[in-house]
């Protein structure tokens, strides 16, 4: 059998996390290999060219494109101030002057003698890349960025919204089935990452934003609650750039779903520690899952994961489709031959032992390994 299975999400108390921190365009790396960095340290920076603004001089002065050079008061590369004259047409021996003023502060980027359009560019915008996690610079990609390495506990979620942030983990659930409702969020949660159990409610989202919490973590969410909070629907699963004050990470999916016990227990053990979290999710073209990273002092674990073993009897799994969606189980058997399921399709299946002890048949495509 080939290893045809869905790799699960990583939930581990000890692993070496490597974070690649890259600039959007080439720039300057501010640290060197071996440096120890904190989450808010700038590791690389660059200047992104400012927004351009075009001025159609030919149109404004009723000229042909190739006549524009003759009336220009500024040339390519000159800096200009808003309101400054950049071109001027003089007629009737200097009696009439038709000036064109710069609409912005910036520089002259281009003067076209074909179209008669002048391109002005606003000042460059500085962009800095932060370390995001506490760790050591393990690799420098010259002019591009760095790789930061740290031993850490790592929990990958299934879906999230909101970008990178840090905060102290605060567990407010007694069990992995508890609902994270608004009344559980207090003013003292300002700047913290609040962890619930099975579901984060709409009022919890509002309350968390009110008190200034940094993030929320729970098993699931009702899709309409999330859409209402975001103010727009989600068509494709590419998130992370939402304009919202808190980062939300779901560990299981949509609906009320108990957080996997292993995930919940690990988060409980990390209660009170500072975590770096990121809700960014991208389920195509370079998959990205949301994550919770808690740096630890040392670790013997390697970042290399053993992905060759696949599943065997006893392997813990999560069922990720109806009719057993969200349930945790262990592999009971792995029959090699294709089997008929209710839909009439013949597929590879496994039998799984649910928490209740019941043995059920599941297509292999509908389970994922609980990794870590």
């Amino acid at each position, binding site marked *: 059998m080939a290893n045809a299975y869905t790799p699960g999400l990583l939930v581990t108390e000890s692993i070496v996390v490597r974070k690649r921190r890259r600039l959007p365009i080439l720039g300057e790396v501010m640290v060197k290999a071996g440096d120890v960095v904190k989450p808010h340290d700038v590791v690389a920076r660059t200047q992104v060219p400012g927004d351009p603004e075009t001025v159609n001089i030919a149109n404004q002065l009723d000229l042909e494109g190739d006549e524009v050079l003759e009336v220009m008061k500024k040339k390519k590369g000159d800096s200009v101030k808003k309101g400054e004259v950049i071109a001027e047409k003089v007629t009737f021996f200097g009696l009439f002057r038709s000036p064109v003023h710069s609409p912005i502060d910036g520089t002259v980027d281009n003067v076209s003698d074909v*179209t008669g359009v002048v*391109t002005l560019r606003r000042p460059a915008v500085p962009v800095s890349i932060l370390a995001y996690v506490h760790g050591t610079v393990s690799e420098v990609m010259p002019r591009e960025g760095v790789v930061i390495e740290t031993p850490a506990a790592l929990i990958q979620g299934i879906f999230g919204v909101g970008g990178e942030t840090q905060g102290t983990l605060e567990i407010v659930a007694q069990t992995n089935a508890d609902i994270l409702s608004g009344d559980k969020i207090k003013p003292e949660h300002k700047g913290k990452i609040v962890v619930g159990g099975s579901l984060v409610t709409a009022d919890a989202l509002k309350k968390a934003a009110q008190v200034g919490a940094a993030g929320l973590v729970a098993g699931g969410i009702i899709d309409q609650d999330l859409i209402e909070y975001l103010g727009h629907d989600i*068509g494709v699963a590419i998130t992370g750039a939402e304009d919202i004050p808190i980062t939300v990470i779901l560990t299981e*999916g949509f609906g009320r779903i108990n957080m996997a016990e292993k995930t919940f227990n690990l988060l409980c053990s990390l209660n009170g520690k500072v975590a770096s979290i990121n809700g960014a999710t991208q389920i*195509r073209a*370079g*998959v990205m899952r949301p994550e919770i990273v808690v740096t630890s002092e040392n670790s013997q674990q390697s970042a290399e994961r053993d992905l060759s073993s696949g599943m065997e009897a006893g392997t813990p799994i999560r069922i990720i489709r109806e009719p057993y969606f969200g349930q945790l189980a262990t592999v009971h058997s792995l029959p090699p031959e294709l089997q008929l399921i*209710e*839909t009439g399709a013949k597929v590879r299946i496994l039998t799984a032992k649910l928490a209740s002890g019941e043995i059920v048949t599941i297509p292999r495509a509908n389970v994922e390994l609980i990794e870590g």
Partner: protein
Amino acid sequence: MEQKRKLRSILATDCGSTTTKAILIELVDGVYRLICRGEAPTTVEAPFEDVTMGARNAIHEIEELMGRTFQDESGIITPQRDSKVGVDIYLSTSSAGGGLQMMVAGVVKQMTAESAERAALGAGAIVMDAIAINDGRLPYQKIQRIRQLRPDMILMSGGIDGGTVTHVVELAELIAAAEPRPRLGIGFNLPIIYAGNKQARKHIESTLAEKADLRMVDNLRPVLEKEILGPAREEIHNLFMEHVMAQAPGYNKLMSWTDVPIMPTPGAVGKMIETVASQKKMTVIGVDIGGATTDVFSVFADTFNRTVSANLGMSYSICNVMLESGLDNIMRWVPFNIDAADLRNRIRNKMIRPTTIPQTMQELIIEQAIAREALRLAFEHHKSLAVGLRGIQTQRDIAEAFEQTATGASLVDLMKLGMIVGSGGVLSHAPRRVQSALMMLDSFVPEGITQLAVDSIFMMPQLGVLSGVNPEAAQQVFDRDCLIRLGTAIAPVGTAKEGDDCVSVKITTSQGQSVEHKAAYGSIHLIPLAEDEVAEAVAKPARGFDLGRGKGNEVQSKVHGGVVGVIIDARGRGPLGLPSDKPNRIRKLVEWYKALDAYPMDILAKYLGKEETVSG
């Protein structure tokens, strides 16, 4: 030719956004046949970040099933050493990692920008935006948009050869001002293909050469009345290999394994559809519904068109199907009640766990309902882009003058459509083939007499790339192992009251056996006709119904059989007669499913309410 004759075995993979599919083709008794297939999840994403792992896993499945060895540590073993080890050639297509993402630009939106869009789509790209001088956006808005997008490359056109250069240079200046960056490869300049007015080349070069990796090819519209897309498409494929594939995780390794360049998956499927249309001399629509996108291909009036609906798919973009179609439109195909909130959560969970499959009949029917809407929306999109050249002088005969058809009218004519070929997981892997036929009928709503077929195991991409190396092998496998004929649909156009006469059909097989069927409006019927059978059909539509020869006029035609048979679709056209009130709609859906034996009715009964029994 010498080499083609010598090919004994061909291994081909298609690295899709979700699954990597491998097929083994071999020469058996002088004919190329599909021997075995395997598949595995695509591994472009973390933690693997190496496309070759998924390819190896898919090929490994074939190795296990066949008890043979095709790969070693360094890659694929070529050529074939003996009956157990190696293959003669290895090929691959890819749409993983987001496929090929392009931006196009032209001077006039409906002319050169549209030609550029057709060139990019035909080459297998997703078109992120089409910028034009007259697209209604202000210059700063266009610049903002170009800056936001990080395409893999830009195709730029504008002006006829010898025409004015000002506008196309203006376009180049907008692009230069935006300083666009490529999606992959931080230190690389963005490739820009210029396929516009030749007289403007030197200005384009002085504007863009420093800021981009500029390539020049022949004008897409050298004169207004002509559209030449070939050179631009060829350059797109070259750049796809040089820039996009070279930057994606593991592709350098995969490229070193393949014997010919990797093709973008949709480009390969398109090539196969074109081949089918020319071989069978008929108008064809092909559709490939994937996890992220739905591609529609058509050949009407000898013109090939491809469109891709980038955000209509069955997994990654499934929520966008729900968003664009609305939940009610999905639910109209479902014959049972389900809580809307529960359904929304299920659809979102499919989005975040894209590789899962339906396990229950309820889930299957919901998934196929979503597929109908994705297909319908993608087809609407296709019809709007598969149009004749706009703004040109055309000679019209007197009938056309009376019809007042404008230039740029859609080329898609459902009455003239000869065949629909469906591809993609939800169509190719439907547990019963009749389900695929019904999905295509419901979403494309073909008129008159139309053949239906599916790509049996999702291998058109591999055959498309193979057709460039060995067309004979591609054609033989396509006919014998890839294309599964479902049958023929006979669908009169018109509406009436339920139960009114609609059409009577007499089918006579080659052995002279006849069967006659009278279909009332609002019904659907199935007449079994074997896959290799071509029968004579005489269809007489009732007054007010048209089968292509005018209302009420009899049509005689050959009809192909298939694994489903001949479907008399008397549910009406313009529009399809799906009742709008829920009880009647559910009653009709159950009736149609029963008539076609589309689902096991005993299992379906579990999910139907008391009022929605299957007995009636």
